[in-house]
């Protein structure tokens, strides 16, 4: 009744995308929080775009960018021999962009919330900016990091528009849970749609509850022994 293959694929996608967002979101958030560049607002606006843009619009442009008509698409084809559109890696790129604000914004907000005098103290004690980041800024931003990870993970689990535009609907490759549900409704398989939707709902809820439960503890900072 439930198509486990789509669940497995969706989970894989969400783990990969939220991990990538964590790794690449950190430097972007750091830059947004600490840069004094005059055009910083432009970057902030671009990062926030996916929140307001219809997923189909974003998906459409990602599809164009991945396809053989864009310089990036041509470069990829010359490198690998095939296009990124309608593949799992293409799906990862689309989902990454779509969930970018959901990780970068909580990260940047928690970095900005760290007392600047603590960072200054770290520097006067001889720490490089990198060490100050890892020893002071990051540990004091744990709640924001956890929130950003949870939001981007859950957001990727449930996305639909971007996946459909960029990935299409290839079983085992790009068919995610939300598309599976849509297909079942189209085919009047309401029982199957219901079972799948319920499972996704419970899964996402349990995951978020665990994350926010752990996060609540993270607010009470304990000394590192």
């Amino acid at each position, binding site marked *: 009744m439930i198509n486990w293959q789509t669940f497995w694929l969706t989970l894989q996608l969400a783990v990969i995308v939220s991990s990538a967002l964590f790794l690449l979101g950190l430097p972007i958030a750091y830059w947004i929080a600490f840069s004094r560049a005059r055009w910083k607002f432009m970057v902030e606006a671009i990062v926030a775009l996916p929140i307001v843009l219809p997923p189909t619009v974003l998906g459409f442009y990602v599809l164009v960018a991945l396809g053989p008509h864009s310089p990036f698409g041509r470069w990829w084809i010359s490198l690998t021999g095939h296009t990124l559109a309608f593949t799992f890696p293409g799906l990862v790129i689309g989902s990454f962009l779509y969930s970018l604000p959901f990780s970068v914004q909580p990260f940047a907000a928690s970095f900005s919330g760290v007392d600047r*005098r603590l960072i200054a103290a770290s520097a*006067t004690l001889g720490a490089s900016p990198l060490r100050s980041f890892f020893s002071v800024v990051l540990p004091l931003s744990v709640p924001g990091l956890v929130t950003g990870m949870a939001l981007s993970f859950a957001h990727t689990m449930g996305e639909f528009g971007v996946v459909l535009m960029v990935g299409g609907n290839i079983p085992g490759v790009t068919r995610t849970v939300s598309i599976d549900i849509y297909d079942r409704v189209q085919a009047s398989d309401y029982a199957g749609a219901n079972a799948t939707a319920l499972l996704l709902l419970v899964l996402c809820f349990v995951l978020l509850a665990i994350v926010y439960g752990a996060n609540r503890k993270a607010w009470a900072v304990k000394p590192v022994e």
Partner: protein
Amino acid sequence: MSESRILVPAQPAPHEPSALIAVSARKPDASHLEASFRKRFGDFVLDIEFQASPGFTILFGASGAGKTTLLDCVAGLTQPEAGRIVAGKLCMFDQPRHINLPVAKRRVGYVFQTLALFPHLSVERNVAYGLAHLPQAERKTRSAAILQAFRIGSLAGRSAREISGGESQRVALARTLVTDPALLLLDEPLAALDVATKARIIDDLREWNRSHCIPILYVTHSREEVFALGESVIVLDRGRIIARGSPHEVMTAPLQETVAQLAGFENIFDATVEAVHPERGTMICRIISHKERISDPVLLETPLVRAGVASTLRVGIRAGDILLATSLPEGLSARNVIPGRVRSLEQRDMIVSCRVECGIAGSGQELRRGVDMEVHLTLAARDSLGLEPGRPVWLVIKTHSCHLMQR
């Protein structure tokens, strides 16, 4: 009135010099700080030039005078637009030569007003933070030694969030000193402490600097701390240095009116020099009234300063330094006895502020107005003298109670 209240207790606190010296056996090398730079923030301009020798240099000034900005520039947290900052042989900032050492490379110890202890680390990890370049064993030895020297060894395992105000101040100092800085910046680090704790920490700091001999810039707006600590004072006002010297020179004979207001002169007058008596070390000044012409000029004998006859300057007199008599006093050492008339009496808490109009000749000249002086009396003095408005009195002012300032 508060010079006599000095922070440091009469008997020195018990110390273990060996522990302090063990923290660092570095040879004391007298490194001076030389700074001259300009930094602009909107309307505010910090434009200063000063030198600091090993030992305490107090930066004194009202809030907003630019004290913290000055420290931030020296530490490298803020970049001045122009100038040069050199500590010993280390050039930290030189705008014409495009030198601007990063904060971490300046070897400047900086204890902030907020202390900025890392809340997620234990006391021990806070103190060892600046020793990351050393091997683990040495890090442990050094931080244990400084914790011992500052008598906070028992706190090592505690969270920086769980310790008291006085303990936090010690941890912040220890964390900075353990890195063996070449220059120490202290931004009112002891502001929140009671006098006894403050005195003990300052003693520890003095003891530490006996073996390190580095310049310490100490920001405060407390007069008492200036007298307790200062070998040398720099007074800042609106981004500029307006006076410098020993605490006694700067605080008891200010050169500019802003200092006078800071130091608490209730009476400030413009005056012209009538005569100078270098042989007596005094001069005579005539108070200029901004009101109508005074029929009878008020002349004051003041200490001698470098000023020519007929030049103008300002005289500051503390209300508590003026004596008041109800009959013409005789046989006094004080050189200034000025007749006047009580205008008003006002009780403020436990003192009486008496305004006396001086420089009115005789009677029947009510329209002519003189110079007002504020005199502080005790309640008992007011009652026993039977003071009331209109009563003729004589003001007695010692020569050295007249503080001269530039206009």
